[in-house]
């Protein structure tokens, strides 16, 4: 390396630019003023830092020991339950779902599928042609009309609560499956002050067979042809107190 000392006057010259001067000895001011390359001090470890280390090792180790699942290659349970218990745990999923009431399950189905048009409030939208479900004569009476509409859909003019609707078409929802259709009907018929009774999966299954050959959406005359208090076979009687004989029939079985 060239040890030649640069002229001190040159050192504080301002505005050096390597692009203009080939001579690297014309050192940029930034280099002249900068501090020494960093060095390291030798302060000792403080006591409380060692305490922090101890605590971290203790809690880390304790956590590892507590939730290791016995280091088993197929144990998904951090507490390391015995294998039979794990088998039991794996069947808990559907059971937990079944713990939700039909009403709550229906709410989820409704919010995911129906609320787009009928709104979460069940009031529909007059301007866009979506009839209300809250307080509607179709959702509070007999269950049959209700279930027919949901299964096959509805189109054409319709009068609900004295107002004309007709611009929108309701699609058939039978592809949701019996359980979900039953749940959502149960929800709609008991929400927003509606007074319809619950509907079971078996009732929908029976209706599905009955309507299997029905090709397209229903229209208002089709629905009007059914008496307003007609019930699906096998269910409880609308808002009326259940008859003693029907109590014996299986209600909504929890299994899917």
């Amino acid at each position, binding site marked *: 390396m060239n040890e030649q000392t640069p002229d001190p006057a040159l050192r504080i010259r301002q505005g050096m630019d*390597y692009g203009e001067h080939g001579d690297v000895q014309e050192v940029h001011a930034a280099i002249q003023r900068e501090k020494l390359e960093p060095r390291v001090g030798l302060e000792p470890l403080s006591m409380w830092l060692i305490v922090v280390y101890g605590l971290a090792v203790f809690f880390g180790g304790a956590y590892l020991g507590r939730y290791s699942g016995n280091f088993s290659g197929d144990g998904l349970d951090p507490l390391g339950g015995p294998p039979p218990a794990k088998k039991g745990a794996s069947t808990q999923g559907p059971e937990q779902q079944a713990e*939700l009431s039909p009403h709550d399950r229906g709410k989820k189905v409704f919010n995911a599928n129906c609320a787009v048009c009928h709104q979460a409030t069940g009031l529909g939208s007059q301007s866009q042609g979506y009839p209300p479900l809250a307080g509607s004569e179709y959702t509070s009476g007999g269950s049959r009309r209700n279930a027919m509409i949901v299964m096959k859909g509805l189109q054409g003019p319709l009068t609900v609560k004295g107002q004309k609707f007709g611009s929108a078409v309701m699609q058939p929802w039978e592809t949701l499956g019996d359980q979900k259709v039953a749940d959502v009907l149960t929800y709609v018929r008991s929400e927003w002050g509606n007074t319809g009774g619950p509907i079971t999966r078996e009732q929908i299954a029976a209706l599905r067979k009955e309507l299997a050959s029905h090709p397209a959406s229903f229209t208002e005359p089709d629905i009007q042809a059914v008496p307003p208090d007609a019930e699906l076979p096998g269910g409880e009687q609308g808002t009326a107190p259940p008859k003693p004989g029907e109590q014996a029939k299986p209600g909504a079985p929890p299994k899917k």
Partner: protein
Amino acid sequence: MDAAEIPLKAPPVPTDVPTSDTEQIERALIDASTRVPVLMFYTSAIVWLLLGTLLAMLVSIKLHAPDMFSGVSFLTWGRVRPAHTNIMIYGWASMAGMGTAIWLMARLCRTVLRHPLLIITGAGFWNLGVLLGVGAILTGDSTGYQWLEFPPYVAVILFVAYTMIMSWAVLMFRFRRGDRIYITQWYLLGAFLWFPWLYAAAQLMLFVVPVQGVMQAAVNWWYANNLLFLWFGAIGLGTAYYMIPKVIGRPVYSYHLATIGFWTYALFSSWTGMQRMIDGPFPAWMITASIAATILTIIPVATVGLNHHMTMKGYFPLMRYSPTLRFTVFGAISYTVFSLVGVIISFRSVARYLNFTQASVAYSHLGLYAFYTMVIFGSMYYIVPRLVGREWRYASLIKLHFWASVYGVGLMSLMLLSGAIVEGTNLNDASMAFTESTQSILPYLRGRSLAGVLMTVSHFVFAFHFGLMLFGLGRTASVPTFLNPVESEGSEAHL
């Protein structure tokens, strides 16, 4: 604002700085040898940063306005998001980090950069790789693994480029002069060797000899988390260990703390990653081991944090003047925050609410932005004037850059973390439909977009300022650009 507003007095001829003329000439030679490669890395990185920022805005806005550009296939969310993350990781963060690392390595090894042409070629290849990879992602040829979306042929290009770049950076260490090896060199050398290990292991286990089933997710998260710690984290910490004592002109507090901090960091952080998949279908011990390792990262965090704090003690007022110090110290503090947030969200009881929500995005940004990117910005404010021979033109732009970044990343983390708590609580509510629970985070996502605007402003301001420097439009003065006028005589003049 003009240079006239910036300080002040002509610097005294530095009598109190005991650097000999030989040392100054040596530094000048080193800086001259690193000039083109480092500036090339910085320029490419900043171009990628701008591109990634624009994509980030798109990603953020599309989350609450999904119809925007929904008709354009290459601007759909599923493509724009990986394009954003990969540009930021491989384009911005890696390239800027490599630029800083090369300069630091040359300075600390007291050796000129040999064969800079190879490094320049490497940088070119790296750019080509990122460009091809991003093109592949946008045209739909993404692999679908988080942070590894580039198709395998791009990985080959990146690997070749990396070999060209880093073999020479490692060779500098071989040709070092002087008998001391400084802390920064430990971290940088570690990072240079850890990155190829991580990248090769992930590529091998995902594409060459793919592991089966859910273990692919385990490999993927191990890679992502370790890239954050062992590649970006190591470069960031190494840079902070250099910049803080260098600017304030005081030795690092303790060698012992630095040793413990380094080795425990290397040991524990390589075990982390699985905690991101709590309640996933993995053997419980894998996840638990990662959580325990995350708890143990408190040791390096407390040690390094204390070391930096004690070094800075009494010198905090200097942050008022020095841009480098302000960015670096903010980054170093964010490192502690980032790590503690990482520990908290890794507990099973907390992860029950925050796992698989926006909290993971907040965590990544705390690490990659609030900590790493801010430290790298700080190093750029220090290094670039030494490479172009000019001082930063406008103190006001530096201040704008700093505050927009700080408020941007702060607001963003706050929005995403609090939004994640709301979203996670709703997701756990069985009577709530999925769509309802995801809608509950919408206001927070809008807030995040606002934060994104701040960060976009800060990046464009910085890019403009950097462009001025690059085209020789910086100030020609022998005093550095202070953020605020220096009122009293003191060491500030040497920042």
